[in-house]
């Protein structure tokens, strides 16, 4: 289990994450939603070690990892994607993915190579394997991010806003892939604003606002929660 306990992170006067707690079990998909600036990305940054929390604890299978540098967390099985993709522009797509199959998953030689190829095929950008990552468009870069995260053979996967800009068909495909990944025993935290996506992937939804947890529950609970409608979904609820 990946647990965050009462995390706090502020930037100057602004408290981005404010005593926020949650956990994920392997095999389940949870969604984290909330208005823009709620602190979702900051939370991911805290869990992966890109930022250090001011307060609070993070535990991976009951081991406290809050002091570990991010590369160690990655090797322990925490992988992520980025809201604004950050591939290695100077590396080919294949090389991009191999960095994580080698360093995060700890694979060697042929194994690393085949794990990378497998991830690319799974995500659907294998045909671009020897292009430079900088030649991909924004959406392909998101998929590359996803492939990198998968090649890390993670136990826990934090997906920050992968759907934005994808077509309905692509979203569908992605949703079923995310569910399939979870079925293989990966705990997934899905962050995104496309409620259809949230509905189709998540077993459980957590709502965040101004750094705090507002409520949590099943998709239907959340979609009908007055406060969530007020701060997040708007009068008419989800899209359409």
């Amino acid at each position, binding site marked *: 289990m990946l647990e965050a306990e009462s995390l706090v992170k502020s930037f100057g006067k602004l408290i981005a994450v404010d005593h926020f707690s949650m956990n994920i079990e392997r095999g389940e998909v949870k969604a984290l939603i909330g208005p823009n600036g709620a602190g979702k*990305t900051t939370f991911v*940054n805290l869990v992966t070690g*890109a*930022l250090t929390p001011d307060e609070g604890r993070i535990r991976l299978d009951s081991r406290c990892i809050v002091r570990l540098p991010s590369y160690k967390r990655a090797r322990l099985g925490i992988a992520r994607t*980025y809201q604004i993709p*950050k591939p290695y522009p100077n590396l080919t797509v294949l090389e991009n993915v191999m960095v994580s199959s080698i360093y995060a998953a700890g694979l060697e030689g042929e194994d690393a190579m085949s794990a990378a190829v497998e991830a690319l095929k799974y995500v659907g950008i294998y045909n671009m394997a020897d292009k430079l990552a900088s030649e991909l468009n924004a959406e392909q870069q998101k998929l590359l991010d996803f492939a990198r995260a998968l090649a890390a053979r993670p136990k826990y996967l934090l997906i920050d806003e992968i759907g934005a800009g994808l077509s309905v068909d692509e979203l569908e495909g992605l949703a079923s892939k995310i569910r399939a990944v979870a079925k293989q025993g990966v705990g997934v935290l899905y962050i995104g604003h496309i409620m259809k996506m949230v509905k189709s992937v998540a077993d459980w939804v957590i709502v965040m606002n101004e750094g705090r947890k507002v409520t949590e529950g099943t998709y239907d609970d959340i979609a009908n929660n007055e406060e969530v409608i007020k701060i997040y979904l708007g009068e008419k609820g989800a899209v359409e």
Partner: protein
Amino acid sequence: MNAGPLVGYALVVGLLEGLYFAFMALGLNLVFGVVRMVNIAHGDLIVMGGYLAFVLFSAFKLNSLGSMVAAFLLFFVVGIALYYVLVPRLQGSSDPEMFSFIAFFGISMFIEAIATLIFGEYPLSLPFSALLGGSVEFMGHGIPKAFIVMAGVSAAVLVLTYYYLEMTGLGRATRAMMQNPEQSAALGVNSKLVALFAFSYGIALAGAAGAFTPYVFGNIYAAAGTQITAIAFTIVIIGALGNPLSTVIGGLIFGVFYQVLEVFVPSLAYAIVFIALLAIIVAKPGGLLGGEQREV
């Protein structure tokens, strides 16, 4: 040695010179900030400004303040020419910062060689009276009046530049163009003109600052450029690259540190200044006034 008055004296001289150092480094910072060019020839341009002041004084007895204005105008034109030769191509390259470093090194070698051919190898210098003779007494020691004039002019240039970048539409457009060229163009910023102006202004500042080098550095010679570039760079990074206000901090720190150290450990003054600079940058990686960057 009675240290009290000496330290007071060194502080004041350091502040006066520090303002000039900020002026000296300002153009470098601007050129980097605006077009991301690492102008390693900055010091050589300053030296050429110094030569210009020398020539104008020898030929027309022109005061260095006049030479400064002349240098500014002349180097502005030089900046325009340099811009067209270098900047668009370098900006289109895969690593503009590093490649510009090399290109400007070429320019630096070129300037130094030309300067040697024209002005010969001897150091040249100007009497302080070419700016303003005499000195004022402070803490029992004389401060050349020329230093005070120089510091005043430097402060004025710094204020003017700050005003240009932070308060005017042109300055805002300049910063916008640096950060997001496509969007700034789509909002009506004439990027080429803005960049051309800022770059040429930066080069012109180098030339103008040169008019005072004979006083601060004692003399000018073709090979002095490298050392001046190095000092300018360190000043720029103590502050923050691309932030002219911070250059003032860098200049003052450099000036004061150096003068105070010269009182106590002259032989290690430069070494300690540079070590202190390193310590500062390590403690504040973005420079003293650099903001933190959101990366994720």
